[in-house]
């Protein structure tokens, strides 16, 4: 660890930007001493978060979620399938979140190539989380028992990556599900499910008159934190994630049950107190996110 | 199903020991260093050789011999039903490897160190025995490119159906599921360089079938020599005109 001392003399002379590039860790540590981060946030605060529902008209449900500059677009398309024999009255969620299909962040500044590599991992974690949280009752996706059920294809595109990929992906997915409007369909002569209005079958009884929205119970929300020494930094940027590599992601549902707690390695060992702090931060964050989502939904209804 | 009629005729009217019509043509691809078309009945294969030339991928360079590469591909219209297979499937990778190994064995690779020879074979029509046809076409193309070889390699297949050894199987006979013995030989040295079989066969019958295939190879070798002499003759005639 000779570097910090060697840089001691330099640090007074070089400009801030150069110092940041040359000694990123020291740059951050100097900020952390003052309990502030380079983007003027206190350690425990998340970045500005916005949700825009209905970003894509061609999908049945869609949402654009933005945490800081990390941007994810989630959209759901509903298709009809024949349910499996074991679960004749259940639908299915085709979870194919292609979290980072869009080759982002290959620029030289950020850790190159991260999202493309991280995509399958984020996708797997996301589908585990959504399915194990029990957010969606698959029975609601049934149309005709044993004959037809909905398959909800969820696709997530990462438009801009700047840390906290999983949080943004989960938020966009949850928002897209809450925006989802199931089309009115009826059964035609061939035993196929078709849209009611367009086939001139409006005289027929729609199969799903009631079920136009999905009831979301116990919605999961997440917060990613970075641990460094004794500090806990909530909602890290990509730069923070790459410099301080101990990442803890906590997912809690609306009744404060733990859905997932991921800490894949990292130089810092997490002790009970740190874990407790992370969970406490997540609890606050869940409340924030719930409010943001509610506002977005009520904003939609006013329109 | 009956593959050999009581009169001793095969489905396409051949005798069991009869080979299909052979046809070869040299120098069909103008831009290649060497090229040839080889036809065995309805099976038609085109081969092109590029090289010896600088190695494209430096990491593959071999310091004491030439790098031989081979790629086999089938045209979409080469089979009865139109196929739409992606390039580079397992079968073509395997055949590429077989051809490469066979040709590598006869090329004097040590004479061309740090260089690369590419052999590309394209099947225009597949009617059984594409493997053999490809090897024969590749031999001709290599000879056309003037690449030094120990000997030419010729290849022919033979099978065993209805208790009869059959030479040079066509597609219907090939897909009957019987044994299919593909042999490649160096005719002058009288050595076998390739031998493939993928079925169960008693040893004494196998020897018979293999012997038949070797006879086929020799016949092809004679034909190939003939083609080459004609070409050489034409070439010398041409050069005598342009450089009197």
């Amino acid at each position, binding site marked *: 660890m000779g570097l910090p001392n060697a840089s001691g003399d330099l640090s007074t002379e070089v400009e801030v930007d150069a110092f940041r590039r040359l000694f990123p860790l020291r740059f951050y540590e100097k900020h952390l001493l003052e309990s502030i981060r380079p983007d003027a946030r206190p350690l425990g605060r998340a970045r500005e978060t916005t949700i825009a529902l209905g970003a894509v008209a061609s999908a049945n449900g869609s949402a654009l979620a933005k945490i800081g500059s990390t941007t994810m677009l989630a959209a759901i398309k509903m298709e009809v399938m024949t349910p499996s024999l074991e679960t004749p009255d259940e639908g299915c969620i085709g979870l194919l979140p292609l979290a980072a299909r869009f080759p982002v962040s290959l620029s030289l500044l950020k850790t*190159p190539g991260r999202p493309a590599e991280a995509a399958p991992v984020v996708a797997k974690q996301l589908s585990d989380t959504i399915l194990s949280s029990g957010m969606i009752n698959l029975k609601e996706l049934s149309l005709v028992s044993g004959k037809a059920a909905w398959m909800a294809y969820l696709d997530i595109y990462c438009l801009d990556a700047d840390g906290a990929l999983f949080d943004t992906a989960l938020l966009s997915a949850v928002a897209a599900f809450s925006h989802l409007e199931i089309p009115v369909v009826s059964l035609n002569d061939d035993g196929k499910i078709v849209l009611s209005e367009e086939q001139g079958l409006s005289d027929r009884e729609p199969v799903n008159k009631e079920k136009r929205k999905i009831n979301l119970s116990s919605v999961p929300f997440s917060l990613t934190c970075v641990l460094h020494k004794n500090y806990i930094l909530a909602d890290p940027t990509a730069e923070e994630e790459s410099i301080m590599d101990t990442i803890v992601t906590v997912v809690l549902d609306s009744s404060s049950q*733990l859905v997932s707690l991921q800490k*894949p390695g990292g130089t810092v060992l997490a*002790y*009970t107190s740190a874990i407790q702090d992370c969970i406490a931060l997540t609890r606050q964050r869940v409340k924030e996110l719930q409010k943001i989502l509610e506002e977005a939904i009520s904003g939609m209804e006013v329109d | 199903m009956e593959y050999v009629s009581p009169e001793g005729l095969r489905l396409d009217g051949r005798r069991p020991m009869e080979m299909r019509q052979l046809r070869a043509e040299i120098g069909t691809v103008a831009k290649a260093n060497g090229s040839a078309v080889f036809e065995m009945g309805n099976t038609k294969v085109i081969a092109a050789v590029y090289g010896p030339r600088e190695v494209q991928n430096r990491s593959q360079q071999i310091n004491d011999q030439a790098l031989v590469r081979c790629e086999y591909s089938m045209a979409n219209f080469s089979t009865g039903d139109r196929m739409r297979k992606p390039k580079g499937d397992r079968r073509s990778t395997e055949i590429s490897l077989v051809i490469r190994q066979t040709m590598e064995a006869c090329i004097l690779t040590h004479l061309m160190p740090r260089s690369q020879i590419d052999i590309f074979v394209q099947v225009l029509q597949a009617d059984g025995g594409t493997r053999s046809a490809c090897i024969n076409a590749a031999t001709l193309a290599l000879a056309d490119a003037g690449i030094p070889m120990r000997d030419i390699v010729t290849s022919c297949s033979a099978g065993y159906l209805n208790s009869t050894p059959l030479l040079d199987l066509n597609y219907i006979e090939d897909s009957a599921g019987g044994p299919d013995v593909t042999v490649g030989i160096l005719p002058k040295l009288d050595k076998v360089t390739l031998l493939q079989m993928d079925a169960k066969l008693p040893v004494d019958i196998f020897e018979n079938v293999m012997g038949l295939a070797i006879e086929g190879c020799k016949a092809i070798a004679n034909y190939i020599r003939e083609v080459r002499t004609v070409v050489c003759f034409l070439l010398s005639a041409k050069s005598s005109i342009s450089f009197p």
Partner: protein
Amino acid sequence: MEVDREDGRSQNQLRPLACSRNILHRAHGSASWSQGDTKVLAAVYGPKAGTKKNENPEKACIEVIWKPKTGQIGKPEKEYEMILKRTLESVCILTVNPNTTTSIIVQVVNDDGALLPSAINAACMALVDAGIPMKHLAVAVCCCVAKSGYVILDPTKLEEQQKMKAFAYLVFPNSVHSVLPEGSLRVEGEPIENGIITSVTHGIMSVDDYFYCLERGRAASVKLSDFLRRNLQQQSTDSSKAG
């Protein structure tokens, strides 16, 4: 609370452990780890020169390749690779061999529950066998929260599928034998072996359940690290005898 387990274990009891090292000749280090019927083979190649693209050349790079028992590599395997890579990176001393790559190949021989922890233990032993510099060992445990609320350790596949509502994979450092008086190696008032290297959970549990899992996992990790220590000492004396 008494819990019936199919194999008659108590809820905190681990399955019989077995570990042998240096079983592959071509690899620089190798180990097989079995925990009941779950068996994993790990091989280490390296360090070899150069890092892959996108990796920091100022540090040693660790590459993990997960080979499932059957089938192709899918998203779950990618996730395992990522977790294993991150875990091992935090255990190894990466600054010793900068600009090198160490590959760890994990072959699943049989999966009967607690697969990822077994793989981590196997990989860790293989690294020791290869002589890769490490800060400490990583000791991995699987804790399960059953539908009826109790916590069991080291579940079998059957238990994972039928009874469990959630489980946590936890990785801790091995317990330290110190010449210093008890308690000197404490961070924030907790012994170092209580720090979590890796935590992965699936399924819904309450926060209290998670902390209970942590407690149980820590207790088990002490036993596991004793086993590892004994195993390492035993084999090193074996080899010195043979030599």
